[in-house]
């Protein structure tokens, strides 16, 4: 085991860690924001929203994330240059980066998986509470904002820990589309130094540590929510 490369490459690894965390947080937050309407329309929406939402979650959950990522990066990357004017617009520097497609693919993936969880959570809120809210004269939107959504979000809170860890474990895929996350930095180090195991073992430990921190963070968060026992 040789570890002297750590002294040379720690800035890249630190930057890689930062990118990994940004990927994780962005895709979880944006994904959850999308998951709420996707779950909701599957429970109460009109058919022209319900079926597309159901199709979306089925597609996301039934195909490998790697293929989704490549579909975005290579597939959309093939379409975008054909759109007139896009090449010269302010969007182009973003659309050229693998990072954008990684965030897009991971966000949609989270939205698909969490959308299904949110559907169950919306269904899991006791009917009586919604009827009571309606009975005291709340409008449908008020019912959603004051009762239905907060209750559903509390139901999904215990699943979020696992979902976040799963999402963390998916982020290394981004290195296949040139993103310099932890995995990307590691693969660069491996090519530079010809060390096969040490860099991989090193980031394996880092991923385990992040997992540990996430678990601790969520159990703290769950303790903040009052529960009737």
């Amino acid at each position, binding site marked *: 085991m040789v570890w002297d490369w750590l002294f040379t490459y720690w800035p890249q690894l630190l930057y890689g860690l930062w990118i990994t965390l940004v990927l994780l947080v962005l895709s979880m937050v944006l994904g959850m924001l999308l998951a709420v309407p996707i779950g909701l329309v599957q429970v109460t929406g009109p058919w022209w929203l319900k079926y597309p939402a159901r199709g979306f979650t089925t*597609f996301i959950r039934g195909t490998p994330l790697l293929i989704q990522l490549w579909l975005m990066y290579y597939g959309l990357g093939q379409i975008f240059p054909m759109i007139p004017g896009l090449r010269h617009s302010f969007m182009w520097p973003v659309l050229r980066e693998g990072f954008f497609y990684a965030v897009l693919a991971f966000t949609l993936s989270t939205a698909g998986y969490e959308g299904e969880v949110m559907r169950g959570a919306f269904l899991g809120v006791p009917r009586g509470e919604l009827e009571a809210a309606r009975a005291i004269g709340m409008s449908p939107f008020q019912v959603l904002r004051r009762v239905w959504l907060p209750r559903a979000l509390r139901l999904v809170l215990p699943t979020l820990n696992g979902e976040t860890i799963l999402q963390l474990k998916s982020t*290394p895929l981004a290195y296949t589309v040139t993103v310099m996350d932890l995995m990307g930095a590691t693969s660069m180090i491996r090519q530079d130094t010809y060390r*096969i195991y040490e860099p*991989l073992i090193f980031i394996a430990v880092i991923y*385990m540590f992040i997992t540990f921190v996430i678990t601790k963070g969520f159990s703290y968060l769950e303790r903040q929510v009052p529960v009737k026992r």
Partner: protein
Amino acid sequence: MLRRGTDLGFRMSAWLAKALVLLSWGPAGYGDELFYGALRTIEISVLAYFLGLTIGALGATGKLYGPKWLKELLHGYTTLVRAVPELVLLLLLYYAGTDVVNTMLGGFGKGPIEVNGLAAAVGVLGFVQGAYSTEVIRAAILAIPHGQMEAARAFGMGGPLMARRIILPAMLPFAMPGLANLWLIVTKDSALVSVVGGIAELSLVTKQAAGVTKQYLLLYLVTAFIYLAITLFSNRIFNWLENMTRRGQRKLT
């Protein structure tokens, strides 16, 4: 306006014709390559799944009834595998596995060999699956009502007999949803093998075909739908299996 309409129609039919050629069977298209790639994906998944189940059954037994050191070893295994990204594990185990095999061959005085792509993929995916199966099966065994085991023991059943007659059938209804999920996960995780290469499964075939033809969007979409078809078909089978294991039990609401 009319010209533009026909132009669009013409372009669409030209694209459709190109797509059909691209997906056709034989040397001109990639239909046959994708089909055999999909078969390879299923082959890898089935083998890795059953390897995982074997590890899982042994691991769960060890975790529940084994000596302390074994319990701790297995706890380390399941924690490690479930906290480290599959891709990192895949690369790590792929290189390590190849190394171990070659060191062993070196010990017998034989030169290094290229490790079979299928064996490496199955070994690595099975090892990862094993950790998850261990947990699923362990939880299912723990969910068996205690009285059933006690009754079996009171009848004088030994360990293996009890495992076959009582534990296995009583645990399956609890384990099936988790095991079905693991199957879906392994079919999707098998796509990761394409990052290492070495075996022409669906994702690698698609990557190569897309690289040659530059038809990324079309080929990745087709491949995505092939995976989706595998998933949807598996769902049917597992629903049927779940009903089989639940025969004679009350319906879940």
